[in-house]
């Protein structure tokens, strides 16, 4: 059965779009049929991160308004056969995104795909609530930083009250994705530790994405990091995250890295 996943955060700039692309690609790499949907009308970016910016003809608003069919608007990824993108509109008024229209699009996608991944805009306005409305699963993207954690707490509140599942007395399955995490700085007490963030937000951890130059490099090249740099630490974390989302138990390998490997990895990066 198709699952709708929303990637959300409250605060902007924490890595929602990067994570949407990476999770979408990773799910497709595992053989699932995946559609990634950009809900950030007016400020679309998922097309750019996925490297499909020059192939956009029709967008989400076109489909919502009935100007284009779903099949016309979906862009098939050039690298993975089972990965599709439904881009957001760049110019049109975001008020065109209606609740009924979004429901129709999501239901249409549910018939064709195994996973529908919605990239939410930042904030708690209508765009964000529409993106999470039909979610079965939510990935809350958070940086180890006070403003990001506070905003994530607000979003968790919204997931528990403003979604279709919440209104039917059910619960959206929630996961924490901690991005831009620098373990060395956390150990020195400069940034909040994973345990602190988990205790404050009290939702289960999906993955920790380490701070890495590979994420920006992949974005520059227009490739989700799991495709652009599949052996990098962030890519492996996203691939593990996807296995967890599909119900596998992933044993985290606690790596005790020696001085030599640290030096080596720094030079390699």
């Amino acid at each position, binding site marked *: 059965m198709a699952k709708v996943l929303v990637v959300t955060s409250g605060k902007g700039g924490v890595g929602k779009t990067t994570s949407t692309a990476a999770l979408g690609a990773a799910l497709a790499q595992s053989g699932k049929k995946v559609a990634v949907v950009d809900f950030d009308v007016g400020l679309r970016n998922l097309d750019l991160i996925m490297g499909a910016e020059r192939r956009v003809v029709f967008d989400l608003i076109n489909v919502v308004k009935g100007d284009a069919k779903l099949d016309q608007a979906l862009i098939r990824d050039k690298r993975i056969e089972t990965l599709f993108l439904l881009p957001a509109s760049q110019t049109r008024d975001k008020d065109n995104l209606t609740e009924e229209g979004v429901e129709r699009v999501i239901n249409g996608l549910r018939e064709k795909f195994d996973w529908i991944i919605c990239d939410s805009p930042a904030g708690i306005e209508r765009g964000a609530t529409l993106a999470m409305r039909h979610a079965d699963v939510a990935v809350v993207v958070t940086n180890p930083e*006070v403003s990001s954690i*506070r905003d994530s*707490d607000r979003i968790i*509140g919204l997931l528990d*009250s403003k979604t279709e599942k919440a209104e039917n007395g059910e619960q959206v399955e929630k996961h924490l994705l901690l991005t831009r995490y620098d373990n060395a700085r956390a150990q020195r007490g400069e940034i*909040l530790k994973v345990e602190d963030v988990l205790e*404050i937000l009290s939702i289960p951890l999906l993955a920790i994405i380490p701070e890495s130059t590979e994420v920006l490099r992949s974005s520059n090249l227009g490739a989700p990091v799991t495709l652009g740099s599949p052996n990098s630490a962030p890519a492996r974390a996203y691939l593990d995250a996807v296995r967890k989302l599909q119900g596998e138990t992933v044993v985290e390998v606690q790596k005790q890295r020696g001085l030599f490997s640290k030096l080596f990895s720094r030079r390699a990066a």
Partner: protein
Amino acid sequence: MSLFSFFKRNTSAPVARERLQVLLAHERTIVGGGESDLVAILREEIMAVIAKHMSVPQDNVQIKMDRGASVSTLEVDIEIPTDIAAGMRPAA
């Protein structure tokens, strides 16, 4: 001393953690249909029910909510004017 302060510097994370815990504990009760809203709604609805049977001035109805760690209490205090109380008969 300077060496000691070198190791001490930058441990701002525990402060961040404490600030967040205090802040969120407060915000979770207020934001998103929290305490203040709930009490106001309850007050209005209780007033409407009372108004069906007798006229009691707004100020005579006090509603208080106390949130404790294990038990929360809702206290409703309705003061009935003597002239109304005298006219009341026990039901059937």
